[in-house]
C-alpha cells in the first residue's frame, strides 16, 4: 500500500486511490508541506516521511521522483525553452516512448505538441506540468495549485484532466484555493492554518465544520 506521512506539527496520511485536497489560507504551510514530502526542504529533526513502506526523510528530490512520487509547481509547468512534445520526451526519458501520444491526447495537448512552452497560455503550461508527471506513470501525483491564475473555463478543463488522471488509478494530492472546485474534486480534505492541521476528513464532512469557515473567512 502506498502512503505518505509527514509528521511533526502536521500528520498526514494518504491512502491508495485517494484524491486529497489540501486547503488553507496563504502562509498556512501547504507548499512547505509539499516541499518537505518531495525532498525540496529538509523537515525538522524528528519528522518522518514514509512512502510506500519506506522511510524517505532526507532523500534528495530526484531520488524521490524516481519512486514515482511526482509533483508539479504552482507557477506554471514545463520547461519554457522546449516544445510541449519535448517536455514530455524529457520526462519520459525516451523520444520514442509509446506513452507520449496517449498522454498528449489524454491531456488535450496534441494540437499544441510542437509549440514552445514559452508561447503557451498558463493553462496549457499547467497541463504540460501534469502531463510530464503523468508520462512518468506516477503512483502518487502532487499538484501545487493546479487552478491558480486560470479563468473559469480553463479551470473546468484542468479539473476534468485531474479527474481523468485519478480515474486512471493515480493517487492525487492537490493544494488549491478554489474551494468550490476542491469540494467537487476531492474525496478527502485537509485544512491547514499557520502550520497546523485544523481539519481532516471527507469533503462533505469538512465543509460543514466551523474551522473550515473560520479559515476561509480569514483567508
Amino acid at each position: 500500500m502506498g502512503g505518505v506521512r509527514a509528521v511533526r506539527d502536521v500528520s498526514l496520511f494518504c491512502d491508495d486511490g485517494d484524491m486529497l485536497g489540501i486547503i488553507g489560507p496563504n502562509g498556512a504551510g501547504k507548499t512547505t508541506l509539499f516541499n518537505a514530502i518531495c525532498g525540496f526542504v529538509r523537515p525538522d529533526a524528528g519528522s518522518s516521511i514514509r512512502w510506500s513502506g519506506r522511510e524517505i526523510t532526507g532523500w534528495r528530490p530526484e531520488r524521490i521522483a524516481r519512486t514515482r512520487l511526482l509533483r508539479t509547481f504552482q507557477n506554471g509547468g514545463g520547461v519554457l525553452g522546449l516544445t510541449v512534445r519535448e517536455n514530455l520526451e524529457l520526462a519520459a526519458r525516451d523520444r520514442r516512448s509509446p506513452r507520449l501520444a496517449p498522454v498528449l491526447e489524454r491531456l488535450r495537448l496534441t494540437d499544441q505538441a510542437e509549440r514552445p512552452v514559452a508561447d503557451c497560455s498558463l493553462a496549457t503550461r499547467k497541463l504540460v506540468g501534469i502531463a510530464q508527471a503523468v508520462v512518468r506513470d506516477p503512483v502518487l501525483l502532487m499538484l501545487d495549485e493546479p487552478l491558480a491564475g486560470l479563468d473559469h473555463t480553463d479551470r473546468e478543463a484542468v479539473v476534468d484532466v485531474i479527474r481523468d488522471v485519478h480515474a486512471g488509478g493515480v493517487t492525487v494530492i492537490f493544494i488549491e484555493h478554489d474551494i468550490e472546485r476542491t469540494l467537487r474534486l476531492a474525496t478527502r480534505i485537509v485544512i491547514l492554518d499557520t502550520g497546523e492541521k485544523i481539519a481532516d476528513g471527507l469533503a462533505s464532512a469538512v465543509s460543514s465544520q466551523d474551522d473550515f469557515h473560520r479559515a476561509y473567512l480569514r483567508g
Partner: protein
Amino acid sequence: MSRLARDLGGVALLGLVLAVVAVQVPEQRVLLFNLFLTFGALTVALDLLVGSLGMLSAGHAAFFGAGAYLSTIFSQRWGWPLPLAAATAVIAVAVLAAAIGYASVTRTAGMHFAIITFAFGQLMVEVVNQFPEITGGSEGQSVSWGLDEDLPFDWSIYRYFSLWLVGALVLTAAVVVALRRSQFGLRMQSIKDDEAVTKALGFNPRWYKAVAFVVASGLAGLIGTLYAPMTGFVSPQFMGVDQSVFFLGLIIVGGLGRVSGALIGVLLVAIIPLYLELDAVTRPLIVGVTMALVVLFEPNGVAGIADRIRRLAARSIGGRRSSDGPGAGPVGEPDRLVSTHE
C-alpha cells in the same frame, strides 16, 4: 530528417568548407585561419557550458593550456609517441576537469561557479610558474613535433595543422550538437530553465553539469594539444583567466547556445580586427565597443539579430497571407485551452 541528422549534416558541410579553405588559404593567412579554428573550437566547447547550462566557466583557457603543456611534456620531455602523448594529455585534462568540476558543481552555482573556476584557473597558471624545470615557467617553452620531413604534400607545416584543427573543430561541434539534440540536451535545457522542475522529474542537475564540464574541458585540452605545436610555443599566457573571459565575450557577442553564434563571435571580435591589421590602440577599442553595443542592444548576440530579421521577414509574409482569408493570421493556434477540446 531528424534535427540531429540535420545539424550533424550542417557540421559536416562546415567541415568540408573549412577543409577547402584550409587547402586554399594564402600562405600569409594560414596562421590567422588556424587561430580562427582554434578559437572557434574552444568557444563552441565553452558554449556547451554557457549556452546550454548557463555555467560561466572562467577556467576554460586553463584546460586548453593544460592540454598544451601535458602533451608537450609527455612527447618532448618523456619521449612518448605523439598520438599517445596527445591522447594521454586529453584524458588527464578530463580527469582534472572531473575532479574540479565535481567539486565546483556540487558546492556552487551561478557566480560562485565562475569564481571557483577562476580560482582553479589561476592555480593551474601558478603550477606552471612554480615548476620551470618541467614547464619552462613564466617564460614558456618551445614546442616542436618534428614532423616536417614525414609529411606527404609540399605544404608548410601550418597548413597541415589547419586540417587537423578543422578536424578538432568538426569533432567539437559534432559532440556539442549531438549532446544538445539528445535526451542529455533536453535535460540541460531543463536545468538551465529551472533546476527544481528538473529534480522533480528525477534528474540530478549536478551530474549533467559535471559531465558537460568534463566534455567541454576535455575538448579544450584536445585543442591545446594541437595549438601548442602549431605555434611552436607554449606559455602561461595561453591559460590565464583573461583568456577565458575573452572566450566568454566571444560567445556572448556571437550568440549563445549555437555553433554558428560562437563562430560568428570569433570571426567578428577576434579574427577580423587582426585581418584588418588594426593598430594596438584601435583594435581593443573597436572590440570593446562592439562587445558593449551587442550586449546592450541584442542580448541574443549577432546570431540573434539574424533571427530577428528572419522573424520579421516571416511575419511580413504571414501578414500578407492573413489578408487572404479569415483565420489565417500569423499568431497561429489560439491561446485558450478550451479551444483544444471544444
